[in-house]
């Protein structure tokens, strides 16, 4: 049944899909010369999609007979996704401009991915979830191999595709098991069926679904694709991967566990605790030996997902709010870090990714070095930077739910993590300047980097606002 209210509630996705299709035509007929204008129009599309959230699309409730939900939780996630997607488009032209073909499909693919993410965070049915996830994934596979001439990029795309399909298969198998044993694909139906104890079939389904989703959020032990994809993909795409799809996947993860499997809390809590601790420790240990900054950021994202899951393990509204706040803060730190990484150039102006090429940055580019250090300290969770607050919130939620042991182990893991962030800072500040490194940035990148750094330093003033918004979003689930 197609009703007006449902259409209005899905307005953000409709806007994105429609503008994606139109812009694809523009790109196809106007050629790559239109890349810049397509980029700005895509940002406009993201902005207008964001604006529709002010209306019924932001809080309307169920649409299409329970296939889709528009609530504070989805709005919170969508705002973050749209913002990071727009920022990933903004930074792209300069990167692709240096000796590479500028292609107009880049922003269009991002629009399609974002439409899929919107469906992911709004899904209240396993099938909507799957469709959204696949839409996002397909666009992502293409984005990963966007630089076709570059072997690493093609490899990244292929790896991502093969492993991603495997994960999708596992997820789909889990969904089919759940459907078979609960008789429903809707979250509400599954939750109802699970209230009277968990049958073996349901348990298997739950485990498979979580395993498939763990791949998408790159939680250990399903993380192996992340470093390769992050390293191989073009840097703006990596920045995108580390932020928007991460938010979507974690938000989806949260919604599935809380809404669909809320009554089987005891069954999935232990899985989440394992995923969280494993991600924190393996992410931290794996990062130590890395010499490529993008690989390091990949392990950092694995590590951070672990921390976000600590909040989910609590299973309380507070825990969900903490996860959302964590994502918001994480996104600012990560985006900021990538603005710094994008400025890493060699003497000829080509992008470089070696951590060693950062040596002595503090003497050649003071501002960039300071911003880099701020993001690294913040990712390490050292107060007074905002990254500390993110960790604070998830651990507070864990302690509140009686998981003080988990919190203690998790935070001990953050000390291991601090080591590799310190290594980057050491290279920037303590080492002698590297030869042949000539970091350069555009005013736009510098401005965005400065804004991110300011948020990270002064973020505590946003606490009351962040608390309110994330609590409202969490209340929509529980």
């Amino acid at each position, binding site marked *: 049944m197609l009703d007006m209210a449902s259409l209005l509630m899905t307005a953000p996705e409709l806007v994105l899909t429609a503008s994606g299709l139109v812009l694809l035509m523009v790109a196809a007929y106007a050629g790559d010369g239109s890349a810049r204008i397509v980029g700005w129009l895509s940002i406009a599309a993201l902005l207008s999609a964001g604006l529709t959230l002010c209306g019924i699309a932001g809080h309307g409730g169920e649409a299409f007979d329970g296939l889709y939900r528009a609530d504070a939780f989805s709005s919170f996630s969508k705002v973050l996704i749209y913002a990071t997607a727009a920022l990933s488009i903004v930074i792209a032209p300069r990167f692709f401009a240096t000796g590479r073909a500028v292609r107009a499909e880049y922003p269009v693919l991002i629009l399609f991915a974002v439409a899929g993410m919107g469906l992911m965070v709004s899904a209240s049915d396993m099938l909507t979830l799957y469709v959204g996830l696949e839409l996002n994934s397909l666009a992502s596979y293409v984005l990963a191999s966007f630089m076709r001439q570059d072997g690493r990029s093609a490899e990244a795309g292929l790896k991502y595709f093969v492993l991603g399909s495997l994960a999708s298969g596992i997820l789909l198998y889990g969904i089919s098991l759940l459907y078979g044993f609960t008789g429903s694909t809707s979250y509400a139906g599954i939750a109802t069926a699970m209230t009277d104890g968990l049958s073996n079939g349901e348990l298997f389904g739950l485990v498979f679904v979580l395993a498939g989703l763990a791949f998408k959020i790159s939680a250990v032990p399903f993380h192996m694709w992340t470093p390769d994809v992050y390293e191989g993909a073009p840097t703006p795409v990596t920045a995108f991967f580390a932020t928007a799809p991460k938010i979507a996947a974690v938000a989806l993860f949260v919604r599935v566990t809380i809404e669909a499997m809320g009554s089987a809390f005891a069954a999935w809590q232990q899985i989440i605790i394992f995923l969280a601790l494993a991600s924190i420790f393996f992410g931290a240990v794996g990062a130590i030996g890395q010499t490529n900054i993008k690989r390091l950021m990949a392990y950092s994202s694995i590590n951070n997902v672990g921390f976000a899951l600590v909040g989910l393990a609590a299973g309380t509204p507070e825990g969900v709010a903490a996860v959302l706040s964590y994502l918001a803060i994480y996104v600012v730190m990560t985006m900021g870090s990538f603005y710094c990484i994008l400025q890493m150039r060699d003497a000829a102006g080509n992008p470089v990714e070696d951590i060693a090429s950062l040596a002595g940055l503090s003497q050649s580019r003071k501002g960039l070095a300071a911003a880099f250090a701020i993001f690294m300290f913040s990712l390490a969770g050292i107060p*007074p930077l905002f990254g500390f607050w993110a960790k604070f919130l998830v*651990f*507070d939620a864990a302690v509140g739910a009686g998981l*003080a042991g988990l919190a203690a182990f998790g935070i001990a893991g953050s*000390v291991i993590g601090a080591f590799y962030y310190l290594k980057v800072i050491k290279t920037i500040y*303590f080492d002698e300047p590297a030869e042949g490194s000539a970091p350069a940035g555009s005013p736009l990148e510098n401005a965005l980097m400065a804004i991110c750094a300011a948020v990270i330093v002064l973020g*505590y003033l946003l*606490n009351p606002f962040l608390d309110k918004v994330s609590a409202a979003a969490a209340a929509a689930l529980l």
Partner: protein
Amino acid sequence: MNQLGFPILSLMMALPLAGALACLFSNAATARMIALAATLADLVLGIVLWLNFDQGLSAPQWQFTEYAPIFGRFAWAMGIDGIALMLIALTVFLMPICILASWESVQKRVSEYMAAFLLMETLMIGVFTAQDLFLFYIFFEAGLIPMYLIIGIWGGVNRIYASYKFFLYTLLGSVLMLIAMLWMAREAGTTDIPTLMTHNFDPKVQTWLWLAFFASFAVKMPMWPVHTWLPDAHVQAPTAGSVILAGVLLKMGGYGFIRFSLPMFPDASAQFAWLVYGLSMVAVVYTSLVALVQQDMKKLIAYSSVAHMAIVTVGLFAFNQAGVEGAMMVMLGHGLVSGALFLCVGVIYDRLHTREIDRYGGLSINMPKYAVLFLLFTMASVGLPGTSNFVGEFLSLMGVYQASSWVALVSTTGIILGAAYMLYLYRRICYGDLTKEDVRAMPDLNAREIAILAPIAAAVLWMGIYPESFLAPMRADVRAVVARMEPAKHPGDAHLTAGKPAAPAAHGGHGAAAPHEPSATTEHAGEAH
């Protein structure tokens, strides 16, 4: 607001912070001037703070309080008691000296150096003034960032290893404290430190909370066996960095014990007193012996710091007025004296660029002014009466004697060993013949160096001769801590009991013979308990 009508504590933190930002955007010469001006202004504010601190009997415990709930889950809550006041005074006193000490010895990246020091000052004052649990934690941890940079950028040859070790060691210690804090804030329903200080936590839980806090403060203090970061950090840090590290940062551990562990977990503190005693006794003897064989001056002083800090911990865990007051006095005295000793090392390091003790000798011949001041600080470090450390060490040992005479016995050996390694150090550096050519060429102290060392010398003597100025502001606060410990503490093995006066001698011809002085035997009578 407060008796001054303006938020003096926030101002004291804002000034160095503003100075730090200004330094970042100025050249070396300007940065030096800005840093000196900002720290001197803070010193003036610190004096104003001390003069206006109400020490009367009816004075409120927490003064100059500020409260602004702007951070959602925690608040910008400031306020000081006498204990914090003294430590703030120490901080603002040492900071201009640190800046002056780096005036010439630091030549590379001066503006960033000054900025790091000013930021450090802001954070240290923040630690001592924070009245909100999480605000305290933020300042406590944030200090790692500038110190990491100070050691790593301006440090010695092995600075990178030292900076990592410093950072990760102290971070690992602190994070468990955060988990304990989260639990406490939920249990007590508040993050307000004064309220938490009177909250009675379940004794069973106190054990865990105490251990979590202990992990943090023991590393910061540092206590044996988690002290190993300190010698590395000290040796590699630039002179002023060592001064701040020894002078103020180590005191955060002691401050943490007196502000958190003792009043918040009295039962657990009493329960774990043996642990603290044990580690402290090992520290006193072991690190003193290690200090005795050091070839590196800074390392020697670093190890002596560990030994002195052990006297602080035994004093704190004596749970009586004398012990806690003594511990505070040792902290203040050690802050001045170890800072001054590092500066003394810095003076000759700047001339010869080595810290190896054997490279010196006979300095009293060609650097008499230096030898006099160095001798004063050596004596103060040994704990000679008339200097700051004597007061503190005497009080803490007296306090701990009431709690456990064995601990007092072992801890007192620290004074003897301290005399051994300090005098040995002094002999090798200042006495003997002036045989080395390059040492002979070293000029005596210049005006700047005298200006750095003389105020510390004056303060050391002031603390030694009239300690009341420093004890009076803290007395009521220490009493409150001791009262809080009263129900839980172990009775101790040494009590003063009124002795029985011996019967007057009955010999007819000696009616005027004085009765035996009863007090002479009380100590021994007490031992028997």
